[in-house]
């Protein structure tokens, strides 16, 4: 009974984590950018979906779409207003660009977070679920929305895999993550590759944010923890390795669910952090990292 509960809840949480971390790792793999405004973009998407559905009464599907659209806009704004100017700046030495991108996106994330808090208060918001009702799976009462969340996550991850491995655009993206200079020699504009990646990232982060808003609820306080959890999942799996972060998301998701059910919900994040520290010391490049 409890085992099934953990199995089902853990799966939904893990799938959500995987979706959230996937875009984050993709951007790092392709352009070497660690986007620390990640959590803010996810929360912005969830809050937009909440506002559309609960305040403007647009209906849950439209609300979710608005949320994703907001994340997409935010993602482009992050790239064009923060990341690209730093990458192109001649005043910042090349070896320090990574650190400047980290600082810049961190500040950008705080700005988004503060704006959300200002216009929509700090209160937790739960996005209206798309599917309502509860089903009984092997004696465990499961909200249908939880199943919906898990299914959507799996479908989107599968679609992403198809996009990256089976389409022409995807292959260019993949090639850019292996050797950016090689891609430019083949006549592809690197900037347009980056735009594609940031677009994919926006959709993924938006979807993850909206689903998270339905499943657990979000507030402007969740920005930091969300960024930190995506960061740790991605490092655990190996920076830039999409399949690595998939595995890591499930490891972290189940560890947290196990701790919450068996020990104490207050200690939820501790075992995952300990595991992260251990992995960093034994295998700093992460589970499937290349460098």
């Amino acid at each position: 009974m409890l085992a099934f509960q953990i199995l089902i809840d853990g799966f939904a949480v893990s799938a959500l984590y995987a979706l959230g971390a996937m875009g984050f790792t993709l951007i790092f793999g392709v352009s070497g950018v660690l986007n620390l405004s990640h959590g803010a973009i996810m929360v912005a998407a969830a809050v937009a979906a909440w506002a559309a559905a609960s305040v403007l009464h647009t209906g849950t599907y439209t609300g979710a779409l608005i949320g994703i659209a907001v994340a997409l806009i935010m993602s482009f704004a992050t790239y064009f207003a923060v990341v690209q100017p730093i990458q192109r700046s001649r005043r910042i030495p090349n070896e320090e660009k990574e650190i400047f991108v980290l600082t810049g996106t961190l500040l950008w994330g705080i700005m988004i977070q503060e704006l959300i808090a200002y216009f929509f208060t700090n209160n937790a918001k739960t996005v209206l679920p798309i599917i309502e009702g509860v089903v009984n799976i092997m004696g465990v009462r499961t909200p249908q929305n939880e199943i919906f969340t898990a299914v959507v996550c799996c479908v989107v991850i599968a679609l992403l895999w198809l996009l990256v491995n089976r389409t022409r655009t995807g292959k260019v993206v993949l090639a850019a993550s292996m050797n950016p200079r090689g891609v430019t020699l083949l006549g592809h504009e690197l900037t347009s590759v980056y735009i594609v990646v940031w677009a994919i990232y926006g959709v993924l982060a938006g979807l993850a944010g909206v689903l998270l808003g339905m499943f657990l609820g979000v507030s402007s306080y969740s920005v930091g923890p969300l960024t930190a959890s995506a960061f740790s999942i991605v490092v655990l799996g190996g920076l830039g390795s999409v399949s690595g972060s998939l595995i890591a998301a499930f490891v972290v998701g189940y560890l947290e669910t196990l701790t919450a059910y068996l020990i104490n919900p207050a200690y939820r994040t501790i075992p995952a952090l300990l595991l992260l520290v251990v992995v960093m010391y034994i295998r700093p490049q992460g589970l499937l990292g290349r460098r």
Partner: protein
Amino acid sequence: MGSFFKSRLFFISLGAVIIASTLPLYVSGYVLGLLTVAYYFGVFAMSWDLLFGFAGEVNFGPTFLIGVGAYTAGIVNAQYGLSPYICIVLGAAAAVIAGFVLALPALRVRGPYFGLTTLVAVLMLQNFVVVFADLTGGEIGLTIPDVITIDSHANYWIALGFMTISAAILYGLAQSPVGLVLQASGQDAVQAGALGFNIVKHKLAAFVVSAFFSGLSGALLVFYFGTASVGTVVDIAVGVNVIVAAVLGGRRTVLGAALGAIFLIVAGEFLRPTGELATFIVSAVALLVVLFFPGGFLGAALSREARQ
């Protein structure tokens, strides 16, 4: 080093310190209280700059070192009732040990991985504080029975003196041969190693010095506030402010970091009427500085002077 005492920077700093030390004679206690916090904060930012600007290591967890120093001092005082001075020394010692423990394995990993290790350390400390609530006061905060003094003038002078001495030591260290080796290893670790310098030892030393000043400042701050809480000395938001202060003031300048910290705290206070937008405005200004003046306040001023 001798040329420094003749440079314009030295006279400007000396003038600033002299003016600052006379402030209690003509400003209100409220302003003094604000500046007292700003000075302690300045030490946080300067010790962070030593690691980032010189050793080239992004420490996302300055609050780990600050928090260990602050909480150790606070707990020792609350539990055993030792005199504040002993508690402060113990706090600084604990921060040095924590810095050593954190640095030893963390220096094996580079760049973003190092940043993450330090970030995780903060999250762990935060969890520790919440889990051992009996000892640490948990989320409500730890009340500390003793204070150094309740006189706002004395507190102000202690903070100013502490910041000035720390600034002198950190700046001197940064300009010394050790600082140059650090800077070299931060910019090109392989080449610095090939020149025969022990990079790990230098970086470890930088870490320990940074930890010492962070912990000492954290402990002093706790005895000024009379309370230690996650929100004031451990939270990631506090660490972000330290980083923003250092980058804003100009990385690799040490003194600029203190300038940035004072600016940040005073600006936050001036923007108080704007309510919740204050943090937004400060972050926006910091982002603009990062984008358009990557050298920061002092960096921009110094490079203009160098050009002339």
